[in-house]
């Protein structure tokens, strides 16, 4: 996703200047995606260069609002109509980390998996708590963003479970003579 399309969507509501855009962006993503004002202006410059927005005269406060152009609207319509391609997303650092953990000698892969799972679980608990706390005042857009984060974290935990199960199966086969991870990782005796 791009900040670019996010800003276009906000400008579709009406002209706004930089600080308003930043505030509106953070509001609509429940502040889960903080933007700095520099990113907003850089993006506005590129949008202007591409003819998707145009600057309006400065107001009395010296702020320059921008408005969306016809090509901007067309671009936005295409964005809403097109599914997001998974390969366009940033590469998954965790998947790469695990792949490297498996092939690097001396790494306790099970411990890497468990450490990540506990961290992801904690994040999941925190998101859920947010949901409980703001139950009444929660508006739909923010609730959906929160749910997206919850489902993504859940997917990560499930994937980690899957990785662990695969590891167990893999280490049971006698085909791994060298660098077999020790069966009793140091953290295994932690109790609640």
């Amino acid at each position, binding site marked *: 996703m791009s900040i670019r399309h996010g800003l276009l969507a906000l400008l579709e509501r009406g002209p706004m200047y930089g600080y308003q855009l930043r505030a509106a962006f953070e509001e609509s993503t429940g502040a889960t995606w903080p933007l700095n004002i520099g990113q907003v202006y850089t993006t506005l410059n590129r949008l202007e260069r591409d003819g998707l927005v145009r600057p309006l005269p400065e107001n009395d406060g010296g702020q320059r609002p921008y408005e969306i152009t016809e090509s901007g609207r067309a671009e936005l319509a295409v964005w809403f109509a097109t599914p997001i391609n998974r390969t366009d997303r940033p590469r998954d650092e965790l998947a790469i980390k695990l792949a490297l953990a498996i092939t690097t000698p001396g790494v306790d892969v099970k411990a890497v998996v468990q450490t990540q*799972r*506990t961290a992801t679980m904690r994040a*999941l*608990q925190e998101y859920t708590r947010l949901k409980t706390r703001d139950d009444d005042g929660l508006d739909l857009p923010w609730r959906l963003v929160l749910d997206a984060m919850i489902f993504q974290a859940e997917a990560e935990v499930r994937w980690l479970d899957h990785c662990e199960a695969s590891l167990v199966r893999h280490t049971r086969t006698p085909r791994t003579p060298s660098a077999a991870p020790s069966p009793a990782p140091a*953290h295994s*005796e932690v*109790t*609640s």
Partner: protein
Amino acid sequence: MNVLEIRDAYRVHGTGEAAVHALRGVTLTVAPGELVAVMGPSGSGKSTLLNLAGGLDRPSRGDVFVEGQQIGRMSRRQLAAMRRRSIGYVFQDLNLLPSLTAAENVALPLELDGVGVRKARQLAVAALGEVGLGDLAPRFPDEMSGGQQQRVAIARALIGDRRLVLADEPTGALDSQTGEAVLRLLRTRVDAGAAGVLVTHEARHAAWADRVVFLRDGVIVDTSGPLTEPEQLLEPAS
């Protein structure tokens, strides 16, 4: 005082070569107002842990205390009384008796415990009101949705002075919205002072808990929750 306290519990099924070590030294405490989720693959000891907590099974070694009472020292009769009075169960299915109305289902544990029928019904209707089902008291289970039935089960699990609720995959066949409503309710009841243990394989559901313990091969391998929990600091690492 902790409502549930499991101390260094072992559970071995069978003997000799065929012995299965379902739990190997599990320590777990649950205080009033606390919901603890237990996650683990099948065969990790989740059900055994829940059975020990509910007095349905006894540890081979170690102790289980419910409201300060040691389960291992109880007679069969005492244990049955404690299960009726102190512990509520919510299972994935087979929760409600189909030939009884919602109110009768909720009243049943009280009646079994000798509370008069009229008094028990009164309490049951009030308990159903607390889970938002006051109007459905005269309905039979098959006249209610899955989510409503599960809420009746939660009302029944917590009626009377029960302060320990044990839930085993309580959202089993429910869709995600209804499942969430059930967990929200469980959370509310626990916040009101009960202690809860929730066994689930779904992280999204476990996330409603204050603490999540990860069980592997009968051992708690990790806990996710508040970083500084008093008893975690006091408990010696065994």
